């Protein structure tokens, strides 16, 4: 009941805004190209969610048909790029960060390079990415992995360096050898930092995927909203933006769930 009230409470402002927006659009106060009515956006969103063709058993299974809508295809394409790019970026950053965090020599060797490269926004790599990788998915993967790489790297280094000395001493007292120390003590002790890095990393990856789709590929949500602009289909642009927002939210919820599960031992997470 309380929960229901909170939800109702949260709906007040959005509903009022939607009503005003709809009224303005219907009264013709703004042009349809500048700001289409929310109902038109919703309709467009629904249409692009559904399959474009009627079901034809000869063309494929029912499931394949049900997911053949343009929106789902684009959402899948974007999500695929984010996940592959993130997996590459975080997959490289994690071991690199562990090494740099644990070994001062390696840290001193690579830190200057990292400090110089880190502030360059991934988007600034677009021209190079196209020169190096041409068109299609590879430049997107490259840019997204760059976006995920540095946040994961920096946080992993910090996590390893901030492991409380008391854990190391307790472990040495138990007779723990270096490899076990790394996998069973340093790595778990650093997970809060590492997960923070991953969360920032996937956020960056999500920004970069939309931009990268505007340059080198011909599907994905970023591509779709740019394409819609050429035809001045603002309802489609907004419908695409809303989908991007929903996907971003889904990623965040997924990361949060993973976070809560992996850090169930952590002090700061009591509910």
């Amino acid at each position, binding site marked *: 009941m309380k929960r229901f009230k909170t939800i109702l409470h949260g709906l007040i402002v959005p509903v009022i805004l939607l009503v005003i927006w709809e009224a303005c659009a219907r009264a013709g106060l703004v042009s349809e190209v500048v700001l289409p009515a929310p109902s038109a956006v919703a309709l467009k969103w629904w249409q692009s969610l559904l399959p474009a063709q009627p079901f034809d058993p000869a063309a494929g299974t029912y499931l394949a048909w049900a997911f053949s809508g343009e929106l789902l295809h684009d959402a899948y394409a974007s999500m695929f790029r984010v996940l592959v790019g993130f997996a590459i970026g975080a997959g490289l950053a994690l071991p690199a960060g562990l090494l740099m965090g644990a070994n001062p020599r390696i840290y001193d060797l690579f830190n200057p390079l990292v400090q110089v490269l880190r502030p360059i926004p991934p988007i600034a790599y677009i021209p190079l990415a196209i020169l190096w990788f041409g068109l299609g998915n590879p430049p997107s993967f490259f840019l997204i992995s760059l976006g995920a790489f540095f946040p994961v790297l920096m946080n992993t280094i910090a996590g390893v360096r901030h492991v409380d000395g008391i854990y190391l*001493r*307790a472990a*040495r007292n138990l*007779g723990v050898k270096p490899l076990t120390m790394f996998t069973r003590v340093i790595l778990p002790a650093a997970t809060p930092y590492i997960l923070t890095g991953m969360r920032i990393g996937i956020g960056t990856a999500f920004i970069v995927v939309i931009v990268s789709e505007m340059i080198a590929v011909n599907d994905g949500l970023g591509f779709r909203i740019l394409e819609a602009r050429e035809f001045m289909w603002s309802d489609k642009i907004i419908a695409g933006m809303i989908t991007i927002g929903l996907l971003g939210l889904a990623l965040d919820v997924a990361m949060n769930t993973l976070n809560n599960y992996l850090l169930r031992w952590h002090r700061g997470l009591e509910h």
Partner: protein
Amino acid sequence: MSSQIIVTGVNKVFRTPEKDVVALKDINITIEPGQFVCLLGPSGCGKSTLLNAVAGFSLPSSGTITASGVPVTGPGPERGMVFQEYALFPWMTVAQNIAFGLEVKGLGKAEIAAKVDSLLDTLSLKDFRNRYPKDLSGGMRQRVAIARVLALDSPIMLMDEPFGALDALTRRNLQDELLRIWKAFGKTILFVTHSIEESIYLADRIVVMTYRPGTIKRDQWVDIPRPRDPADPAFNELKRELGRLVMEEQQRHAADELKLAAVD
């Protein structure tokens, strides 16, 4: 294996940018197997420094320490340590914390499970086996820390103010538990405290230390039969005597602090 600790001519100097701090000066003690020895002294007199030297975390600047006949060159599971800050691994459950040292030793799964079960029993932790440390009270955490060290089967137990952060009742409870374990397992225990009462309640022998440089001021045997009663006249007599000794050192410590404050 004999679990004797021999400290011979140990000095420890901490070099800091301002000055050198002589934390330990010419310490000589022999602790026989099965003895319960308390290190007593005011804050900063070098109790932890000496304990850490025996544990092998921070070796002496000069002099030697042997434990069970072997020179101490680093930390090891034959000298199990219980820290004041508990130092449990927060990402492991109670049972996993206790099992960790056994896994490191390379014991088999069944053997580990049996041992963990019996230790959970010994320390009344059965109902908490799958909890994480964050969900335990301070007293419970220290029980887990003791179980973790007992799991190692180390003949020597080193304890640095293990009950310092606990309330009086929990503290007495754990002291009794510790005495029971000490008798049952026949450990040699070196126990740091700055509570005079705690030292008299627990120890066979109390080593009182001086403040800067850390030397041995008094090596005092406690002949009061156990269980000891803090209301007992002999207990109080000793308490007064030790209180006088510690107070002298405490005053030098306070004078030092004042000097430091004046410099600032």
